């Protein structure tokens, strides 16, 4: 216990490295390969063909834009829905609390495509298919619970005393929300937003069913390639897709960090999803 061999942590770090990073190597190689026959570890030749296709295709950037746009709207709507709900459940004695929680958390347990398959025809009748609005609506169910949970956890750590304190200093409901509640919830909101964005970005099936080909998000664009299309392009798209997801999260994290630096809000634990 006392004297741990120095190489052990090193070994673990290397193991971690392999576990996490090495999987990206073939993706990278494949996207740049020109002829790559077994058993060569590296391609015979290199080519930017796949990347040229991916980068030059307007659709790629449209898809990136649409994906992020949908994710942002979904997140914003989630926020509007989650804030009052979390407030109610944390701040008031609500009868049938379990029922409300069960309702809001249900999409975590029941896969959302089940509901989307059911609701598909109605969406079609209301003209919601093939629209961004329809896709946004379809994305709400799978993302809202995570946003709700993050906001609720955050709310629970905000003792009423803070709001009371602000009241005693003469702050009405609105200043109270902006000066006290929001700054405190912000890290939680951002954690929830990260999850919401990530989940929204990852949806293939429900986007496809509701978007019906007209709402082309990144996964829609990517899917034909990875399910039996050109591997180099599939790899390039996959890398781009992963990069967008990571960048969205890193971006939000950076925003949060900036906020911390500016205002020293104690950091909270982030929510996670499988």
């Amino acid at each position, binding site marked *: 216990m006392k004297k741990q061999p120095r190489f052990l942590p090193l070994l673990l770090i290397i193991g971690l490295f392999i576990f996490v990073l090495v999987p990206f190597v073939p993706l990278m190689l494949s996207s740049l390969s020109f002829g790559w026959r077994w058993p060569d570890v590296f391609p015979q030749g290199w080519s930017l063909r796949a990347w040229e296709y991916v980068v030059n295709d307007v659709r790629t950037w449209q898809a990136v834009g649409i994906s992020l746009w949908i994710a942002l709207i979904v997140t914003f709507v989630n926020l509007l829905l989650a804030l009052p709900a979390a407030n109610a459940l944390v701040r008031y004695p609500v009868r049938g609390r379990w029922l409300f929680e069960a309702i809001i958390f249900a999409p975590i347990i029941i896969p959302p495509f089940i509901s989307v398959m059911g609701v598909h025809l109605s969406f079609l009748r209301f003209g919601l298919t093939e629209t961004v609005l329809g896709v946004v609506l379809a994305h709400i169910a799978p993302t809202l619970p995570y946003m709700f949970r993050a906001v609720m956890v955050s709310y629970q750590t905000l003792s009423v005393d803070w709001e*009371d304190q602000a009241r005693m200093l003469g702050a009405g409901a609105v200043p109270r929300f902006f000066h006290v509640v929001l700054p405190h919830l912000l890290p939680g909101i951002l954690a929830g937003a990260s999850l919401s964005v990530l989940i929204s970005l990852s949806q293939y099936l429900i986007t496809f069913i509701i978007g019906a080909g007209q709402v082309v998000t990144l996964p829609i664009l990517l899917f034909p390639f990875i399910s039996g299309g050109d591997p180099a392009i599939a790899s390039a798209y996959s890398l781009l897709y992963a990069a967008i997801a990571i960048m969205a999260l890193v971006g939000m994290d950076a925003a949060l960090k900036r906020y911390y630096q500016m205002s020293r809000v104690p950091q909270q634990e982030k929510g996670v999803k499988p």
Partner: protein
Amino acid sequence: MSDLRIIDIEKRYRSAQAKNEASFLLRPVQLTIREGEFFSLLGPSGCGKTTLLKLVAGLLEADGGELWFGNENLSNVPPEWRKFAMVFQQSLLFPHKTIEDNVAFGLKMQKVGKKERLNAARSMLDHVGLSGFGRRFPEELSGGQQQRVALARALVANPRVLLMDEPFSALDPSLREEMRELLSQIQKEFRVTVLFVTHDRDEAFALSDRIAVMGEGQLRQIGTARQLYERPENIVVASFLGLKNILGGQVTSGRFVSSDKIIDATVHQPLADGDYFMVIRPESIKAAAADQSGHVSIHGIVQEMKYVSGTYNLKVIAETQVLECVFTTFQAEQTAVGESIDLLVDMKEVWFLKE
């Protein structure tokens, strides 16, 4: 006159899970706090102090009763308009604002200009001994400093009443003493009316002009520290104030006989016959050999001696009764644990309670 009058305010908590907890009831409270007075609510945990304080603040809605400040009925005024201020147990500084901005928050809510309110904040920070800390963030301050900031924040907007809910109980003992000094001094300087909640007798005694002792949702007694300590109105108050020598007995025609017979003495007060409790403050017990006039002697055995800064606390067993007494070091040196001792009780100093 801008007294704060609490008239029959009452409150019942209906516990959400009906079975789990008995609901709590704050009995109608009748209380007037004079302008500029330092008034404390003293009572054990869970007796309803915070509840009463929050009712005064308006953070809880009363089930009945009224609250007047001078000629103004505040009963239905929301807390943000009452112009009260409050300091909580935790400093509750806004972590994302600088110290200055925290202190100036109340003024900002009153739409005071930025420059003006920052000046006011800085001078208030001076008062609490924190000049130069204005641009820091709360988390860069120690607990005591944070509580000073909270005090400054509460005072800067010239509140009509300052409400404080155990503001020092989260601090170290030495820091607590320091903060008491500061509060005492600042209260005198600003002549602000203070309603102070604590469960610490020493704190209440050290700070307050008057004290209300609470117990189980009720005001038990109101008075100065000395009135309470020397003339408690009932055993609950007496024992909460740490008066431990309480002897049951009977008064018959001006003579008190304790039930275990260790005391049999003439009563100085005019008391009707009946069952009484005699309360003997530890300070009013002396070792024998001093002048005996007006004293009653009790024989006992020293069970324990403890040195407490400058004096000794003794526990003496007399029959079945354990008596606590305070001895000077000189007196204490004359005796030792296990030895028998004669105690004198000054009958002028004892106090009788009917129960």
